[in-house]
């Protein structure tokens, strides 16, 4: 197998010399590089970005939040439990193997062995091969989000990952810590082949010459990814011309990039909501919906978006952003200090009270500043908040232990669907089912639980949307949590880069399709 790889590599080199006249190289500066080449080792934004560069999913999201055929050319529902996918023919893996139905099944079975993925694919029974180019994906219960999940089905080259490596370890082993075959070797069907990788320093991608998607406008032959963690250095690297593209862009530098004629800034709406959870178990005051409402009225989240986020976030009043099934446009931000004070008076807490709060300081964009602003705003209704901020490495243990009365958390729905927010953040915490795993406010409303579970199984999308909207309405009326905003994604690059067409609200820039003029 290695020989074949070397041969194909050699072939690329010969070919690339031939094309060198028009060879286009793009250098990319990100805040981190992929932790592994094994896409199932960790379920994170960075790993999914890599998955889209070196692999292809059955379907993928478009900018309009619709599904675009990738390895599946079309699909149809057979019944409530089963969806049939017709696979693309003539697709080659980087190793030269041909992509067929067995690779889809193999990849699904591998996801089962991944700690990170197995929760995600829990609703599925498995993949049934109909013929070489047709598969049925089967769920245990009727499942509305089957297509959403198909965006996670990246096909891996089953032949390439079979057998044992030189250490006698199976090549398909998913190893979190320590060496594994898949850590440094990958064979997908995607637009790029990783030709060299030094973790934490640099990854070099080269265009896969046999890429099936010949209609893709992408014309980058070589992509060099370097992690640049420091915000200021990353911006400087773009402005000085050392890299062609950066993300994320710190809000404080937007003006600077906008004013430079050689580079441009592109932002797009993201789905990550930033919220405060009010712990009702720790703080009896928070059990009173009037107090929670008063706090929601006291927070000027539009002001935070304008002053702290420099306009690069969308003010939120519910969990899911526009475009999600449960989005209810009538739910608007409510900043009204008078009303907040009146509500506090009504609750008999005119004099206020003192409480504690924690927030990370390096997890979300400007998280520390947002938390500080919130404490000042709450002080106006006489709630004195003692804030403690800490790096994310320490934060999540404290969050789980619920050490403070108010805790900040951001959430992005990995199904790109409203229900996911409620499942993790708003359902009654239950150790047995795992629902409400990140609900440190201990908000618990049976109706919300009922609706969330019912929505999971409802395949009629219109009915389902109504259920999700009802949830948002309840949470809004009861001020179950304090919403701030949905973070935008920000990208900046040289003028000749076609950034806008390849970005999306998932923050998976489809670099395979990027055009350099």
């Amino acid at each position: 197998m290695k020989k074949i790889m070397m041969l194909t590599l050699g072939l690329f080199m010969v070919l690339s010399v031939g094309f060198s006249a028009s060879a286009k190289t793009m250098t990319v500066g990100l805040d981190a590089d992929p932790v592994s080449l094994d896409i199932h080792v960790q379920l994170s934004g960075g790993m999914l970005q890599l998955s889209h560069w070196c692999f292809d999913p059955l379907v993928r999201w478009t900018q309009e939040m619709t599904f675009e055929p990738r390895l599946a050319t079309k699909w149809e529902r057979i019944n409530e439990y089963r969806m049939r996918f017709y696979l693309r023919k003539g697709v080659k893996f980087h190793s030269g193997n041909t992509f067929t139905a067995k690779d889809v099944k193999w990849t699904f079975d591998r996801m089962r062995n991944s700690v990170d993925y197995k929760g995600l694919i829990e609703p599925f029974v498995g993949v049934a091969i109909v013929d070489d180019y047709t598969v049925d994906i089967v769920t245990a219960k009727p499942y509305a989000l089957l297509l959403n999940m198909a965006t996670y089905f990246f096909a891996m080259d089953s032949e390439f990952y079979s057998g044992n490596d030189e250490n006698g370890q199976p090549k398909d082993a998913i190893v979190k810590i320590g060496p594994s075959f898949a850590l440094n070797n990958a064979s997908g069907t995607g637009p790029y082949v990783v030709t060299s990788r030094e973790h934490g320093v640099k990854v070099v991608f080269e265009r896969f010459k046999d890429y099936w998607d010949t209609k893709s406008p992408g014309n980058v032959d070589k992509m060099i990814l370097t992690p640049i963690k420091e915000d200021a250095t990353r911006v400087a690297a773009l402005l000085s011309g050392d890299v062609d593209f950066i993300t994320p862009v710190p809000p404080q530098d937007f003006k600077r990039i906008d004013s430079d004629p050689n580079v441009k800034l592109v932002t797009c709406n993201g789905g990550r909501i930033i919220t405060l959870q009010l712990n009702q178990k720790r703080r009896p005051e928070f059990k009173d919906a009037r107090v929670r409402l008063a706090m929601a009225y006291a927070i000027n989240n539009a002001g935070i978006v304008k002053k702290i986020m420099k306009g690069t976030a969308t003010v939120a009043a519910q969990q899911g952003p526009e475009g999600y099934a449960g989005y209810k446009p009538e739910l608007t931000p409510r900043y009204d200090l008078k009303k907040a004070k009146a509500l506090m008076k009504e609750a008999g807490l005119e004099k206020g009270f003192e409480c504690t709060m924690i927030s990370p300081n390096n997890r979300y964009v400007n998280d520390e500043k947002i938390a500080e602003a919130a404490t000042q705003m709450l002080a106006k209704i006489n709630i004195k908040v003692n804030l403690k901020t800490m790096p994310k490495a320490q934060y999540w243990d404290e969050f789980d232990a619920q050490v403070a009365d108010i805790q900040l958390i951001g959430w992005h729905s990995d199904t790109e669907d409203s229900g996911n927010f409620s499942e993790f953040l708003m359902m009654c915490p239950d150790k047995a089912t795992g629902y409400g795993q990140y609900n440190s406010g201990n908000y618990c409303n049976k109706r919300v639980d009922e609706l969330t579970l019912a929505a999971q199984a409802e395949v009629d999308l219109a009915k389902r949307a109504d259920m999700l909207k009802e949830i948002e309405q309840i949470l809004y009326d009861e001020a179950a949590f304090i919403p701030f905003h949905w973070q935008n994604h920000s990208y900046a690059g040289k003028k000749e880069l076609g950034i806008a067409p390849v970005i999306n609200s998932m923050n998976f820039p489809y670099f395979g399709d990027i055009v350099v003029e």
Partner: protein
Amino acid sequence: MFAFIIRRITQAIFVMLVISMVGFAIKNKIGDPVRDLVGERVTPEERAQIRDQLGLNDPFAAQYLRFLKNVTKGDLGQSFFYKKPALDVIVGKAPATLELVFGAALIIILVSMPLGVYTALKPQSAFSRFVMGFSTLGVSMPVFLTAIMLIYVFGVNLHWLPSYGRGETVDLFGNGWWQTGFLTLDGLEHLILPCISLASIMLPLFIRLIRSEMMEVLETEYIKYAWAKGLSPMRIWLVHAFKNTLLPVVTVFGVQIGIMFAFTILTETVFQWQGMGYMFLEAVERSDISLLIAYLIVVGSVFVLVNTLVDILYGFINPTVRIAGRK
């Protein structure tokens, strides 16, 4: 003499044990490494399972003993982030830091000597006053500020020099151990700004040190005698005075080079220089605790080794050191 050496070595081993113990004691305070390895969906039970597999749930003494046992086999543990033996990671990052320190030391030597001598010889000249004033500024400016200013002036505004990273490197020994930036034009360009930043801390100090030492030497009797003898000024300044100025300077330089390694953490972070300092800071952020402990052990053992060797050498050179330790 033998007893003295044995005693010194025992002390060194004891110090290493203390360092490793301190490292182990703090490791649970910097966060849970498993958090960095898994996605948000992974349940607390599964995380606990991974912690179990990694042996992070064992009692302190058990973990420490296991670690010591592995150390005797030359295994300092696996880095969680790099997924390789921690020692390999550190050894792999060392050349970058060494080159940075070497470049900075070179700048310090080449600039501080002529400036120090000149300001000593012509203390009243306008240029000397300017150098002295500037050196005060240099001493009082933090290194990260210097670095960011350099990047903005030479990288962003003038586009003369690259702003981050090591650039193109060459494999020095052909076995991947030492990637050097000194042999390519691109690598050298990448070295300039970080080296200047790192040097900016020590450079003013050395200009001042050389100046004051030189001025002192110029006042001595033998220099006056040399003048009286009618030797040429150049010969007096450079051969007789400067040579004697250098003795204390070299001693201080040796000590400061060690301290400079500590300053690389800031410089490397700003320039995203892939050396040991940057690696250390990253490891703290990712709570890559096995890498952190390995780093403490490696750096600690270098210091202990050098000090022990120096002590033993002193023992040879100066017998009173040996006797002082005898009871």
